[in-house]
């Protein structure tokens, strides 16, 4: 079935940039990229389950969902949307900086992305605190002044699950960015090697896109 091939070109391995299982930088880069895309596909399905549950119940109880949605803070939600879009921009710029080898800009842009992410999470904390104060966190203390308490609770349950899972992804993203900053400071990235920045960038954009779907579904839909 096979015959002996020529010895593998192991030149790149000498630079310590190519892991032992890969033939060359290009194979390593394309494997890593495919891996990240495949991972994002699993993420789509993970959030997909939540979106499905939301869709089913929204269709069944549009009134309760509109009422629950009415109590969310659209201003804070909108600000957060802008903050995240801004962070996507800085992330895209950091990928560019890594490719052009502008290390100083890379570190600054990554820090800016982290900062915007932190602002987003901070605002989220404020929103959660408000909900907690208003007894809108499902559980024994949940209380709703209005009709159809059960289905409004369902709305808030989904709200916390969806935004909560999103926030968990944001926190993981912050950690990854922090690691990139450290590596960037050491000058690890440049035109020859920038896959981690590229892939973590993909992840960050994905998390932003999830929010772009969450925001209208939770905050805007059903608002008159």
């Amino acid at each position, binding site marked *: 079935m096979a*015959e002996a*091939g020529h010895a593998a070109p192991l030149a790149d391995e000498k630079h310590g940039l190519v892991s032992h*299982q890969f033939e060359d930088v290009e194979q390593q880069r394309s494997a890593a990229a*495919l891996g990240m895309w*495949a991972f994002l596909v699993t993420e789509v399905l993970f959030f997909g*389950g939540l979106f499905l549950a939301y869709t089913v*119940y929204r269709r069944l109880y549009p009134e309760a969902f509109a009422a629950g949605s009415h109590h969310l803070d659209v201003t804070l939600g909108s600000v957060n949307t802008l903050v995240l879009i801004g962070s996507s921009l800085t992330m895209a710029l950091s990928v560019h900086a890594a490719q052009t080898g502008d290390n100083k800009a890379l570190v600054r842009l990554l820090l800016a992305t982290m900062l915007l992410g932190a602002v987003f999470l901070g605002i989220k904390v404020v929103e959660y605190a408000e909900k907690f104060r208003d007894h809108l966190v499902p559980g024994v203390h949940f209380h709703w002044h209005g009709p159809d308490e059960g*289905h409004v609770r369902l709305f808030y349950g989904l709200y916390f699950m969806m935004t909560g899972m999103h926030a968990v992804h944001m926190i993981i993203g912050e950690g990854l960015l922090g690691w990139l900053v450290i590596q960037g400071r050491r000058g690890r990235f440049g035109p020859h090697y920038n896959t981690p920045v590229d892939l973590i960038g993909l992840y960050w954009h994905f998390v932003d896109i999830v929010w772009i779907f969450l925001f209208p579904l939770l905050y805007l839909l059903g608002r008159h």
Partner: protein
Amino acid sequence: MATQYAVQPPDEERRVHYLNADYGIRSWLLTVDHKRIALLYLGTVTVMFAVGGLFAVLIRLELLTPTGDLMDSDTYNKVFTMHGIVMVFFFLIPAIPAVLGNFLVPLMIGARDLAFPRLNLFSWYLFVFACLFGVGAIASGGVDTGWTFYTPYSTSSSNTHVITATFAAFVVGFSSILTGLNFIVTIHRMRAPGLTWFRMPLFLWAIYATSLIIMLATPVLAITLLLLIVERAFHFGIFDAQLGGDPVLFQHLFWFYSHPAVYIMILPSMGVISELVATFTRKPIFGYTFVAYSSIGIAVLGFLVWGHHMFVSGQSVYAGMVFSLLSYLVAIPSAIKVFNWTATLYQGSVSFQTPMLYAFGFIGLFTIGGLTGLFLAATGLDVHVHDTYFVVAHFHYIMVGGTIMGYLGGLHYWWPKITGRLYPEGLAKIAAFIVFLGFNLTFFPQFVVGYLGMPRRYHMYPPEFQVLNVMSTAGASILGVGYLLPFVYLIWSMRYGRRATANPWGATGLEWQTPSPPPTHNFDVTPVVTEPAYSYPPIQHVRERVVG
């Protein structure tokens, strides 16, 4: 010619291979070598199989008599639940992909390792962590929801350790996802020069299709189980009718994963069988492309049939009809495989070593399992047999008769490659016969008792069902012996078995062109593939024309 790799150094003991490259516990627990990780998985799933098997023994002993005399109802409910959870999540799903897949995927494609070796080790640690959680749930008193975790029983009625057990299944899901992702990337990006898609061995096609399912279905299970955990902890009502939710939504989400999960268990096994049939008939698999595409067909259609678990759960008649139709369509690619394997034997050179006996056993049991699936997809008939022992018998024919036969066949077939030793052939043949006999005696009576109306998950049952249950228990004890034998002689052979050559079966395939056991980096030189899989020489038949 690749002879230079196969020549064993004169002093075999000195040759460095993946097993003796390094010693000590650290060299195993911190390894990133896919072959060593495969062995770590082998050890772990074997332990979990023993745990699940122990519960099976308890079930069969209890069902020997119609009354509940061995244990009380709560205990019995926990026993069958944990049998299901352990066997499905910790044995059947990981067994072939994580053990054989891990060992073979890089070898078969001529790569030095998987694309992400450290991720691979991380998957194993996740798996072990999940196992510990699962065993912890058992040790701390168990869980009694059934492995299906149906709501609202699991969220508001059961007072057992549901969250611990669910969390274990949640974590093991991530372990599967990462393994599947690793395989997909490896097969896409790391094939040796010349190894085109349609030159790949069918085992790789099967693993590829399986990995697709794992990646697309398991995340849905993860979020479903997470919702279940949150619902049980906070009661926000998503699956609780009292709070305005819908318990049947859980069933939809659960089966959206768990039906494809059946294909996660059976597809790799089918891949193993294709390898075995080719090797032991010395012929290419008949209709290679059809068999390859049928794996993908099963993977795709498998996503569209989840509703056939819910014909009597109150979904609309029309939904039932559509799911019934789609379920019938998924039967076709399975039938194609069975016919093609059978046709491969024609004008072959068939030998009957142990792996081939398992392949015969697989085809027989899978045929029966598949055909009884036609009964269950028949909506009008399913109303009667749903949730009876008929279903239990059907899915054991697929999951035990199919998956475990393939797993054992594959383990014997690649054992020389994995350990560098041969297993004792005579004993192994006897064990294969015992497994086949014991299996049929255990599960065939369950079809009959199911049609007679015995519901599943019954601790006590009407006396009229006793004869068939006694037969089943008797069969299970034979089956148990059949599983114990390989356990004993395979371990024995690791030390005392005869040394294996690089290619004891005379098989094609890159994995046979490197020494047994392979060196850590698999191939000293990257192989180049010039021919399709299974390019065996023509067979000279007596008084028949030459084939090929």
